[in-house]
């Protein structure tokens, strides 16, 4: 369900298209051999090509092409075996060539479609318009000197994939779901680390509003939207701004706006009149990019199972709910962990333990799954102890906490602390007899019709057994004794 904006004149529909810039996970740049490592000292990862020294020429890094093809396949998109690099011309100090090498009319990846999961449990398809390869620019640093701007070219020439969506997204929830899904797919494919904090994934959001059924309204392009939260906030702000403008009888300008994450507002960067004429033309330093379909087919063979495929498999093979499956597949490592835990065990129980207990305690301790002191094998062993009635679910939670703090295995902890569940009926009967003998008044009251006292007896037995008595056995035996 699309989220509407309520205006004075009724409901308005939000129409969103997104452009996601994803830095390709790769050691060297798109057209040079310089390193792409994040966090190096300024201007230490700059080749002559990246600095656009006179006479320097770009040479395409084939690994980047492979990553783009992988990504295109992962987005269920058309792979173009013929594509063209074009120059996008504009002046800026952190753009050494005076142009960005990008792709314009002939991108490497064409139309496709991905599925997003909505909070209400529904799914929606979002169209992919294209994916193209391009160089990143350097970075202008404005806060080091009162008057001067410094330029760091470490990022100059890094390989980006720009993924453009169709205007199929209708609201902040869908937009964040879309961005999350793209990020998830890229991380599964290992073509982008999806790290938005380090800028390896950035989004531009195109927003317009319209009355349902009307033609598309004038859109504003919002730049600098660099977190999931910012996507949501900027859409809410911008949609409201546009509705208010139109309802006040004004027009939405087609312009580029900047998201201010501090003031939580968008503001105009440049209007259509000031828009750059990028004077795109095919880069004469580079031949058209061509490769064989058979190479694409080979890459297809090496693709991992993708999030949606995995989700459906978890739902079908492990009988998980859509929600549980979605949580588990959000990260490839999480899904792998779960599968290790669930192997030959109770798959639903395993899902509960991973989602509710493990992810919960990790979050509380600010740890990632990779840092978990409990391995999948260890958690699996704990679940096995529950399933075979060695320990109860309640005891298991104590054991789990102990495992997390000590790193010991479940079996060791159960042994050391003598937590093994008592299922021996003789031993339980002895305890029951003791409890009944100690509480003759309550026995009489129960027999006189006070059924509710049954829980009291169960509690006493469990207490006496220090929680180790098998609850089902206690129930059964108590019923027999009390008649």
């Amino acid at each position, binding site marked *: 369900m699309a989220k509407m904006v309520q205006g004075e004149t009724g409901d308005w529909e939000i129409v969103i298209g997104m452009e996601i810039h994803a830095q390709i996970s790769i050691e060297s740049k798109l057209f040079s051999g310089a390193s792409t490592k994040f966090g190096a000292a300024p201007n230490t990862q700059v080749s002559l090509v990246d600095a656009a*020294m*006179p006479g320097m020429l770009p*040479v395409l890094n084939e690994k980047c092409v492979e990553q783009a093809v992988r990504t295109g396949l992962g987005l269920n998109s058309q792979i173009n075996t013929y594509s063209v690099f074009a120059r996008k*011309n504009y002046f800026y100090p952190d753009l050494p060539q005076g142009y960005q090498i990008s792709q314009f009319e002939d991108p490497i990846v064409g139309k496709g479609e991905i599925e997003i999961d909505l909070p209400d449990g529904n799914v929606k398809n979002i169209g992919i318009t294209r994916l193209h390869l391009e160089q990143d620019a350097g970075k202008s640093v404005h806060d080091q000197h009162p008057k001067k701007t410094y*330029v760091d070219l470490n990022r100059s020439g890094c390989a980006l994939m720009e993924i453009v969506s169709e205007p199929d997204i209708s609201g902040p929830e869908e937009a964040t779901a879309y961005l999350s899904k793209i990020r998830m797919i890229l991380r599964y494919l290992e073509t982008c680390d999806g790290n938005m904090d380090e800028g390896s994934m950035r989004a531009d959001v195109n927003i317009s509003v319209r009355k349902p059924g009307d033609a598309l309204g004038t859109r504003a392009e919002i730049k600098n939207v660099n977190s999931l939260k910012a996507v949501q906030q900027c859409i809410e702000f911008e949609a409201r701004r546009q509705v208010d403008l139109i309802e006040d009888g004004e027009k939405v300008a087609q312009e580029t706006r900047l998201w201010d994450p501090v003031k939580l507002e968008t503001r105009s960067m440049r209007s259509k009149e000031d828009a750059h004429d990028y*004077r795109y033309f095919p880069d*004469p330093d580079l031949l058209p990019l061509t490769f064989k379909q058979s190479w694409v087919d080979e890459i297809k063979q090496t693709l991992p199972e993708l999030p949606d495929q995995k989700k459906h498999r978890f739902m079908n093979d492990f009988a998980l709910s859509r929600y549980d499956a979605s949580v588990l597949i959000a990260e490839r490592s999480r899904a792998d962990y779960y599968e290790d835990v669930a192997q030959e065990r109770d798959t639903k129980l395993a899902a509960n333990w991973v989602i509710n207990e493990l992810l919960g305690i990790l979050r509380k301790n600010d740890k990632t799954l990779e840092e978990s002191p409990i391995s999948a094998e260890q958690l699996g062993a704990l679940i096995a102890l529950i399933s075979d009635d060695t320990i109860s679910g309640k005891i298991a939670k104590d054991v789990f906490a102990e495992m997390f703090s000590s790193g010991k295995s479940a079996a060791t902890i159960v042994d050391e602390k003598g937590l093994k569940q008592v299922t021996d009926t003789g031993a339980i009967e002895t305890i029951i007899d003791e409890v009944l003998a100690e509480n003759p008044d309550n026995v009489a009251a129960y027999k006189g019709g006070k059924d509710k006292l049954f829980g009291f007896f169960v509690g006493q037995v469990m207490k006496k057994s220090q929680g180790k008595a098998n609850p089902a056995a206690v129930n059964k035996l108590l019923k027999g004794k009390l008649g």
Partner: protein
Amino acid sequence: MSKLTDLTIASALTGLDNKDFTAVELAQAHIDAMAEHSALNAFITETPDIALKQAESSDKRRASGDAGALDGIPLAIKDLFCTNGVQTTAASRILEGFIPQYESTVTQKLFDDGAVMLGKTNLDEFAMGSSNTTSYYGNVINPWKREGDDTDLTPGGSSGGSAAAVAAQICMGATGTDTGGSIRQPASFCGITGMKPTYGRCSRWGTIAFASSLDQAGTFARSVEDNALLLRSMSGHDPKDSTSANKSVPDFAAALTGDIKGKVIGIPKEYRVDGMPEEISALWQRGIEWLESAGATTIEVSLPHTHYALATYYVIAPAEASSNLARYDGVRFGHRAKEDDLTDMYEITRAEGFGEEVKRRIMIGTYALSSGYYDAYYIKAQKVRRLISQDFLSAFEKCDALLTPTAPSSAFAIGENEDDPIKMYLNDVFTVPASLAGLPGISIPAGVDAQGLPLGLQVIGRPWDEETVFKVAGVVENLAQFAYVPQTVKRLPHD
């Protein structure tokens, strides 16, 4: 023995091998000639110290039997090739004082073969021009004079400094670059031989770009054979240039057999342009007769889109240049205006740094790529370019090479044609079509006009068939027996 500066490269190599003289002596003779002819302004940067040092090493290599293919040969390098540790300017103020920390592939290959560098030669700014008058460092003077007339003439352009230096016997050979005729036209104006190979034969890495899809390095020397020797050293696949062809380099000099029996030479009828001087028509006719006398057949061929070549070139080349020259922004190297505001800094840096012709072409190119004009200019020009290439390929189904004049005139006076850019652009009318098609072309001095100025004939070949071009050019050279020497050289006593 003749003067060392009179020698061809081939004969100098023999002399060095025979220990008739040393590389140091050869270098010194040319350094002296460079000093004698400094008035020609052929060099932006002279590097006599480097030359002597390289010559010393060369003598040692030769003594130990490790001499390379061009060991000890003094050359001049067009100041468009980046040279490690030596100022490289492209004849522009914007690169004044720029010292590259890298060596262009072409010069590296020459040095690897033992060549000696005398200096960096003057050119039209960023190779944009046909008269060498757009250089920030002043125009080059052609060593040739009209008979009985001391007027300074242009050496042609853009590689005017290289052509003048070879003609004046300051160096034995020189590198040039040819985008629309920048080797062949100055070779014709200076009475020497200049070769532009197939696009992709020489790496463009480290050569300052003018128009990337057209720029191609080439050679100047005083004989066809010398050009073949130089080109062999400079050529070859370079992984650092994506447009450099992965093709083996033949021994071009070995193609100079003189045997063109059975070859078919095409004479393009569209090159008989209106207003072509009678002397040039007559020279062209003589060329045809020479080739026939050597056993070739000549046929008339048609290159129907020739008429559109100049217009096409003057859209594509400026379009690419407008983008290629964007990197000269004052931010990282070269000239920079002292302005606080970014836009002011850009505008004034470029206003001060670029000359009139460069600005004109940046404007033309920016216009041709602008939204709304791109299809009408750039896209259309690319389509016509394909038709022009197709013309040549069709002609080469019927013939092995083409013979044409190189330029529509002999050298003109400095300052002539300056009032009208279009008139200046017409200098390239016979050289531009082969550039657009990426074909190899050579200009050979074949005669003089009534004023005693040299005139060249051009041989154009199939893509990658430089061997046929050299072979045919060798025959023209033999039969033309061009033995004229520039007055400037005759006048100066060397001994």
